[in-house]
């Protein structure tokens, strides 16, 4: 049953959109499913499913490689996240450039947080100067993402009230 939900939900949503891929602008499709593909270019309507695969693969690597060390899993996941980053750069799925930049920062923030996390796995890997540098880097990139997101949100408020 749970397999049905975790595979079935995205698959069903993808199939509905795929079937209607030439009618994504029609009011009928927009009325119900806009949430899943809004903001995306019409030929990149599937991007949210790529994001779903990104989230699922993070969990998948963690579970299926659970016999390997945490450092090994983190490195594997960082490589996976870099691949998703490359895909995002290549496809530029959002119509709005700001959204593309925002999502890239989101992926980078995730990858850096995870990769930097290697340092905090074992006590012995914690080296004073390096630890502070990585710490500031992780904090910085995450705060940057949050600030950038708030900025984008404020811009949308300005537009709607003009």
């Amino acid at each position, binding site marked *: *049953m*749970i*397999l*049905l*939900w*975790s595979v079935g*939900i*995205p698959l069903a*949503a993808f199939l509905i959109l795929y079937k209607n891929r030439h009618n994504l602008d029609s*009011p009928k499709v*927009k*009325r*119900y*499913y*806009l*949430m*899943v593909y*809004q*903001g995306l270019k019409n030929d990149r309507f599937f991007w*949210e499913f790529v*994001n*779903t695969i*990104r*989230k*699922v693969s*993070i*969990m*998948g690597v*963690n*579970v*299926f490689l*659970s016999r390997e060390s*945490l450092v090994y*899993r*983190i490195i594997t996941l960082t490589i996976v996240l870099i691949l998703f980053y490359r895909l995002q750069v290549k496809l530029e799925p*959002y119509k*709005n450039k700001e*959204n593309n930049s*925002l*999502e890239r920062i*989101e992926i980078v*923030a*995730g990858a850096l*947080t*995870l990769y930097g*996390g290697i340092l*905090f*796995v074992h006590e012995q890997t914690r080296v004073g100067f390096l630890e502070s540098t990585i*710490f500031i880097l*992780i*904090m910085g990139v*995450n*705060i940057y*993402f949050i600030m950038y*997101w708030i900025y*984008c*949100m404020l*811009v*949308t408020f300005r*537009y709607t009230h003009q």
Partner: protein
Amino acid sequence: MAGLMILVVIFLVILVLVNLRKTEESEKSILMRIMTNYLQVITTFLSFNISFPDLLSQLFAPADKLGSTSTPFVSFDCFVKEKELSLFAPSPTFLKAFLSGILPIATFIVSVLVWTIIYFTVRKWCKDFKRNLVVTNVVILFLLHPNLTRTFFLIFQ
């Protein structure tokens, strides 16, 4: 736990309302979706055994609460433990998986009930019953999906 539930419900309601308000594309909704993805990814990292420094954990604390938006619904650990229901199931994990399995059906029934009540009380909030119901469930499933998948993977662990 109750506070967290309220926080989760508020987040869910905002997401539903933002998506219901317009039939045209809304930048706010797109931004909310990107933020949800970020929160879900960060929450997954927090479930790894990385002992992030305190300051960093504090930065991620709201993410942990909101990102795992479905955790209070899916986290049946206490329930399973308290009621000692594990006696009736092959293992607690399986019981958890079973409960998670019926969760989307349960949330669907709740959403039908809520929209029916609104439909008969404040009609102007519910002009298009079918659309409200579909959009609400698309949002719920979007939020629930990572947690359902996590529970599914736990069976293999």
